Every structure is written in C-alpha cells, then in structure tokens.
C-alpha cells in the first residue's frame, strides 16, 4: 500500500439514510462522492446530494445494490478511489471487500480477513476466548449431530439456543427448553440455516432469558491504535430487531462499564481490527455477568447516539482511517457527556403485526429544536419502496441526562408528522411513556412482555 493513500472520491454502495450520512461526512472532508441507484431510486435524496450518480440496475437489490460487477464497474469507470458500503447489502461481505481492494479501490471498512473471522460464530467465540473476553457457555465448534447436541445441552443446562454458525440478524435462532424440544428443533434449524445462509452448521449456547443487549462502539486505525466510544443499550427489540437504542446504559455501574468497554478493545486488538466496529454483549441480569455475543464489522444504524455523547464523528473517522491516517484520539480524550436516545421510525403498521407499509408519503414534517437530530432520506411526496427495508427515519434526542433526553424525544415524537404511510411513531410514544422503560428496568424481552398486539 502506498504510504500516503489519499481518498479523493468515494463511491457510496448503498441507498437511503446511510448513503446520505456517508455523503454528508465526505462533503465535510472535501471528498467527492458518487451515488449509485437502482431504477426505482432515480429521484432518491442520496442521488441528489452526491457529486455524481450512476444507475446500477433493476429495483430488486439482487440486481442492483448487491450486484458486485456493476458497483465495481461504476467505481472503476468514474475513478473512485474508495467504496463505502454503509450497513446491510454488501457491508459485511469479505469477498466484495477483497474484490474492491484487488481493483485498487479502498474498501472503507475492516480487512476482509477480520470480516471472515467475525462472520463465523464459533471462530469468533474462539478468538474472543483467546483475548480473555467472556463468552456464553456453549459449543466450541459447530455441532454436527443430535446426540452431540444432547450431550452438550445436558452439560450447560436448558434453556439453550440453537444458532446458525453463519447466521445473523436473528435468523435461524431457536430457543429450546427441553430434550423433547431439542429433538424436534435440531433438524428444522439445520434446514433453515442451510436455506438462509448456505450452511447448515449450527452451534449451541446457553440461553439467558433475563439479559440486556449492550454493545460497545470501537474505532481502530491501521497502525493498531484502538479506542472505544462507550456502550449502547439496545434491549428494546422485537424479534431480535432493534427498535430503540440509547447511551449510556443507565443500568451499568462505572466499574462494569469500564470492564465491558476495555474487553471490547481487547477483542478488537486480538484480531488486528481496524475501522469502525461494534462488539455486542449480553448482560445476564440474574448473575451480573456479561458475555460476548458477536462483532459487527461495519458502521451500525445506531451509531448516532454514540456521536451525540462523545462529539466524535464516527463516519469521518472511518473515512480518515481508510485513507491511512492514524487516530488522533487517545482514550483519555474521549469523554462521554449527557444522554442520547435513538428511535428507529419504520414505515410499518405496528397495530397490525408491524407489517411493512410501502406507499407515497404525503406530509413529512420533521421535529426540531434543542437536542434533536434526524437522519433520513425521505421527504414530503417521496415514496417508501417495497423492495427495500422499512426504515423511514432515525430520530435522535440528546439531553444533559436521561430524563431530559426522554422528554425531548417525547416532544420530538409529537412534532413528527407523517401521512400517507403507517409509521411506528405511535409505538415509540408508548415505549417512552412505559414505567419500566423510564426506570431503565428492561431486558431483551421488554417489548414482548410489556406490549400485547
């Protein structure tokens, strides 16, 4: 690699709010941008904000945003020197990252090898153990057969969870409470994993029914400097999909916070990680223990809350790191101050099973005022398309403390007016008013336990 790799032009291999977020960061760094779009996204905001735009295919993602050849062909022909993958689509695809690098185009993310290591659940766990990071009791390698699964389940005790080794996003996970359930679930889970991830490999973990999802944002440069930007609490989930995230986690003591955050840094150091990344942990409330769950090797949807409390622009750092620059931040420079909450506002009908609600947006009045940030690619008269995910906007509320952050979020939710499509704004209003949420007395089962649909 050349000693002074400078990035002049970035191709943003994504759409929606994250494409807009990347373009904004690039603009602030005086870097040119190329937006890519499918035929359905001709008028999308990201195509208007970028310096250049190029159509890469048909509306279905497989024929556009996931189609390597056209993305890389566009990057080459328009002379991009870097590609930002955003999240989703090709963001955690090591082959795409490697193909991009082989063409001399910098992939703004970790090395393909780091992505490969963390994509495989049992390999990732093994690496974490090496680094002294606690892992959930379970299988060391993939579990090949039912007898093997039974033996292991007896050892660690029920309930257990069956997971696809190559899985993610909650797909292919099954909670198993007894030997009987294991028998009926093992084969199904294998088949499901095969279908979804082209690999029927399963592994087993102890299931922690009363736990919180806590993750740590890290940033590392290519010289091996790694810092954390504190934790995020993401226990407000539905079907393993995060709905609301906040930082700091009100439940952690300063000692445990330090411990979790420094373990996340150890984890990243052990695999020579660079770029932005997130180490996810499960915090077992009953036993006051935390365990490594997985590492996300990309920018995450919920990164803005960490930006709000630390003042660090994670996207800009990610680009600078990819350009070969060293982190100009020491851990002691990073101070968290205040509290931030993010609500993921989706175009979904939450009163009818959170069914997605594509269609034409009529009114789109954004909230504002002190402490409010909105990341969105939508506007009045734009369309929510059926081909892509249903994220409409990320509404972020910052306050001096959690109470003020909650108050501002409640105010902002009331100001946010969307007509034409269903949204989850109403559901978020309920969460923000919930007594257990207000006390931060929650677990990953919070939504399921508190709300009946």
């Amino acid at each position: 690699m050349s000693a002074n790799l400078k990035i002049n032009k970035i191709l943003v291999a994504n759409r929606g709010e994250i494409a807009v977020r990347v373009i904004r960061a690039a603009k602030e760094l005086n870097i040119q941008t190329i937006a890519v779009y499918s035929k359905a996204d001709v008028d999308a905001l990201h195509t208007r904000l970028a310096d250049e735009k190029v159509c890469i295919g048909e509306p279905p993602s497989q024929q556009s945003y996931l189609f390597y050849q056209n993305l890389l062909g566009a990057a080459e022909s328009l002379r991009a020197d870097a590609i930002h993958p955003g999240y989703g689509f090709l963001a955690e695809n090591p082959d795409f990252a490697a193909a991009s690098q082989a063409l001399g185009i910098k992939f703004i993310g970790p090395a393909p090898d780091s992505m490969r290591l963390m994509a495989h659940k049992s390999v990732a766990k093994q690496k974490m153990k090496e680094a002294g990071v606690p892992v959930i009791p379970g299988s060391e390698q993939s579990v090949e057969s039912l007898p093997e699964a039974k033996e292991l389940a007896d050892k660690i005790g029920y309930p257990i969870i069956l997971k696809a080794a190559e899985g993610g996003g909650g797909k292919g996970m099954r909670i198993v409470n007894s030997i009987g359930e294991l028998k009926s679930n093992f084969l199904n889970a294998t088949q499901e994993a095969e279908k979804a991830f082209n690999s029927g490999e399963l592994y087993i973990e102890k299931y922690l029914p009363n736990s919180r999802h806590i993750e740590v944002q890290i940033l590392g440069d290519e010289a091996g400097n790694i810092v954390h930007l504190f934790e995020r609490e993401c226990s407000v989930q539905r079907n393993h999909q995060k709905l609301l995230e906040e930082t700091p986690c009100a439940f952690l003591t300063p000692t445990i916070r330090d411990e979790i955050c420094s373990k996340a840094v150890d984890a990243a150091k052990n695999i020579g990680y660079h770029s932005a990344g997130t180490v996810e942990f499960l915090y077992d409330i009953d036993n006051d223990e935390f365990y490594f769950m997985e590492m996300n090797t990309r920018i995450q949807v919920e990164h803005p809350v960490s930006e709000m409390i630390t003042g660090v622009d994670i996207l800009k750092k990610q680009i600078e790191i990819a350009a070969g620059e060293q982190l100009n931040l020491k851990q002691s420079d990073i101070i968290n101050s205040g509290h931030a909450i993010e609500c993921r506002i989706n175009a979904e009908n939450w009163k009818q099973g959170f069914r997605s609600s594509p269609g034409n947006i009529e009114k789109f009045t954004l909230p504002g005022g002190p402490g409010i940030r909105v990341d969105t690619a939508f506007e009045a008269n734009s369309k929510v398309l059926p081909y892509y995910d249903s994220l409409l906007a990320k509404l972020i509320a910052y306050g001096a403390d959690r109470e003020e952050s909650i108050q501002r979020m409640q105010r902002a939710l009331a100001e946010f007016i969307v007509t034409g499509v269903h949204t989850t704004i109403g559901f978020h209003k309920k969460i923000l008013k919930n007594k257990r949420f207000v006390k931060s007395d929650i677990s990953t089962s919070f939504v399921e336990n508190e709300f009946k649909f």
Partner: protein
Amino acid sequence: MKNKNDDFVSLDLLRKLFQEMKEFKITRLVIQEDDRKYEIEKNVDQKKVAPVKKPEVKKIEASAPDLEPPTGAKEEYFAVRTPIVGTFYRSSSPDSEPFVETGEKVEKGDPLCIIEAMKAVNEIESEVTGIVKDILVDNAQAVEYDQTLFLIEEE
C-alpha cells in the same frame, strides 16, 4: 487513475490480449498472478456470460423526448442498451479501428463495442441486422445500467 494501476495488468495489455483472442478465436482467458486473477471473456454467446444479463435490445420510438431522431420522426430504431456498468470503448485497442461507425451496416452478432468492468472486457454484439444511425456515447466514457449506446435502423 493515477497510481492505482501500477502492479496490475495494464489496459493496453488487456486490449492486446483481447485482439489476440479474437484472431485465434479464443473465447476465454484466465491469468493468475499470485493472488490476483484476471479473466477475459469474449462475449461470443451472450448467454454464457454470467452473471451479466443479455443486453436488452428494446424497440423504442425514435421520437421519445430524450432521443433526437436523425431522420424522420416516425421511424423506429432499435436501442442497444448496456446491462453492464463500466467503461465504454469503441474499439478493441487504442490503435485499432472502431468496431462500427455511424452509417455503417452491421449484421446480427457483429461486435459493436466493449465495456470494461472489474478488469473484465465484455463485448456487446448487435442483436439485429441494420444500419447504425447513431452512437450515443464517446469512447472511454463511463456508462450506466440500461444506458442507450447505439441506435440501429433494423433491416
């Protein structure tokens, strides 16, 4: 492009190889160099070139607003569009003649241009026999998905 091609097979070499392939009727060439691999595939039968779709050749009205018809407004031309995003070249090498010029007759299956993407050279062939009425892209320009490259008056 500055420094990014230093240790790669140059475009000139690619073009030469491509020319040789044509002469010797080689349709596919793979060069492996350490961990890098280059594949050149001559697009003889477009069905073979996975995962790229066949160029879509749609009949369009020459009076469509974004096209300026060279002749009478009622005439219909075939628009040759590209399914591949990349760099458009009118000839197989900088020194060789363009595959086609405006006003020339092309047979179905004749090469019209090449599009380079991911160091692979894709040849776009005419799906119809007729006269080339217009070439809508300049040599060495970036082309996007479904962009019209040629208008052909079908025979």
